[in-house]
């Protein structure tokens, strides 16, 4: 790979990263907080690429043989592969197919007390992560009888004939470390297809056993009040693993 090939690869990478940033598509691959590092990387890639191209062209004019002296190993061409995959396969992010492969997340205890909830002015919007944490660890049972609004995608499972597993992935760096966060939504009405994004207003159904008594198979259930299909996934399809519990 000579100097001009190198500059072409660098600029192409810079452009595809910019495109992912512009369309928001990067959110399907990495956490939102990678936005600024990615912007920085795209800028540096384009600067390096343009600089190398300019220098390469000038040297080529002066000394036609110089181009081969600056050649490096051709393994660098592999950097174009992610681009080819992005265009040809159009990956859709983590969904039902990924949820089948990885055990759902079991929340760790994060706080001694959880703030009380007030749903008098309408359903409380909550991250699936927080819902799981309160359902598992909150001794004051703050979720009880409250209407909670969750957003996630549908994963059908034979164990839930009258509903689905409302699923959101927890991603700390990139989609490869994604772990499903799942609430079994019962009484959900008409069956929905896998990977449909929904907003569900639900009421927690307390478990009959405690977390300590269930070995590795902890399931959190809720009854659906309404389930609304949303046409598009949210801008940040994944949740971060950082607890928002205070107190």
């Amino acid at each position, binding site marked *: *790979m000579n100097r001009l090939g190198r500059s072409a690869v660098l600029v192409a990478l810079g452009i595809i990263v910019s495109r992912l940033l512009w369309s928001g598509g990067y959110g399907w691959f990495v956490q939102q907080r990678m936005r600024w590092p990615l912007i920085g990387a795209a800028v540096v890639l384009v600067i*390096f690429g343009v600089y190398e191209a300019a220098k390469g062209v000038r040297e080529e004019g002066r000394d036609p043989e110089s181009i081969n002296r600056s050649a*490096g190993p051709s393994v660098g061409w592999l950097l*174009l592969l992610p681009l080819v995959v992005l265009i*040809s396969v159009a*990956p859709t992010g983590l969904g039902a197919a990924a949820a089948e492969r990885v055990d759902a997340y079991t929340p760790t205890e994060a706080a001694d007390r959880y703030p009380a909830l007030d749903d008098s002015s309408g359903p409380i919007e909550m991250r699936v992560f927080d819902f799981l944490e309160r359902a598992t660890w909150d001794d004051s049972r703050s979720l009880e009888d409250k209407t909670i609004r969750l957003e996630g995608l549908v994963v059908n499972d034979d164990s839930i004939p009258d509903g689905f597993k409302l699923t959101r992935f927890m991603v700390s760096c*990139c989609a*490869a470390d994604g772990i499903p966060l799942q609430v079994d939504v019962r009484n959900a009405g008409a069956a929905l297809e896998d990977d449909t994004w929904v907003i569900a207003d639900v009421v927690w159904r307390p478990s009959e056993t405690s977390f300590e008594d269930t070995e590795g198979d902890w399931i959190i259930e809720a009854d659906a009040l309404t389930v609304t299909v949303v046409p598009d996934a949210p801008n940040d399809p994944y949740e971060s693993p950082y607890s928002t519990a205070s107190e």
Partner: protein
Amino acid sequence: MAQSIDDVREEHAVHDHDHDDHDHHDHGGWSLGPLTLALPMLVAFLLNGRIEWFTNQDVRLWATLFVSVCVQALPFLVLGVTISGLIAAFVSPEIVQKIVPKRPALAVPAAGLAGLALPGCECGSVPIAGRLVSAGTPPAAALTFLLAAPAINPVVLVSTAVAFPNNGELVLARFLASFVAAITVGLWWAKRAEGSLLKSKQHDHGDNKGRWERFVDVASRDLVHAGGYLVLGAMAAATLQLIVPRSILTAVADNELYSILMFAALAVLLSICSEADAFVAAGLPQFSLTSRLVFLVVGPVIDLKLIALHTGVFGRRFTMIFAPVTLLVAVASAVLMGRIFL
């Protein structure tokens, strides 16, 4: 020891020369550049949506995992090669010899502590370590930095503390186990005195260039070089994530020895970022803390994507010795610290 380092450098210079000659065969003129770029794009556009195989769920999931490992690693790689370019352009071997202690017993721990200062995942530290060797750093010190940087930097320790809010001792155990493993491997390498095996394959042509031109040249050269190997590693990691579902874990949870071995294997195969691995480990509460500590200590120092990167930057012969030794030392160090603290 000083003698053997000089040998390394001489050998290195000779090797550079060999490689130069080799590179001269890479003809093709620059007109091929845009063509090789356009062709895969064209093929990709033609394939898009036309072949059912590409809409298969598993293929799409593979593509998601593959692209996400690449996208995640890219900013860290860019940071890494920027630093390696700066080292090549502004740090002469004379400066390195002044800064780095002569005795490995001092240089190795110092390099380990320097790892505290590089906030990021493991992908960025490989080109930096390669460039440090080219700039005249004793290989043992550069290797210690390579192993310590991704494992003990503040970002990784904080994310570990967040993932295990009730197990502060695990953060300490992770720090110590990784640090001890890095220093052990570094001292072992210094003792071997067979440094000639470690040859940075990162080359620097044209000593008559200006400093900034040299900076950009080295950085972009290191970027496409290490980046190519990173793509290989990402492909392997995405494939193994599909072949080895994490659900398989539950089978061996009861046996401590098996779970330690399994977590060591998983750390290598899954190639999860050092900033993210604590959350994966936290999600597996049915396993002992010690076996999960093995996962956290092994992953940042050796995994598929790092093996690919090491092969690219230091060569295959080096990696064939370095990878198994690092794996063994990391497992032993993690088990030891697990015994003491957990």
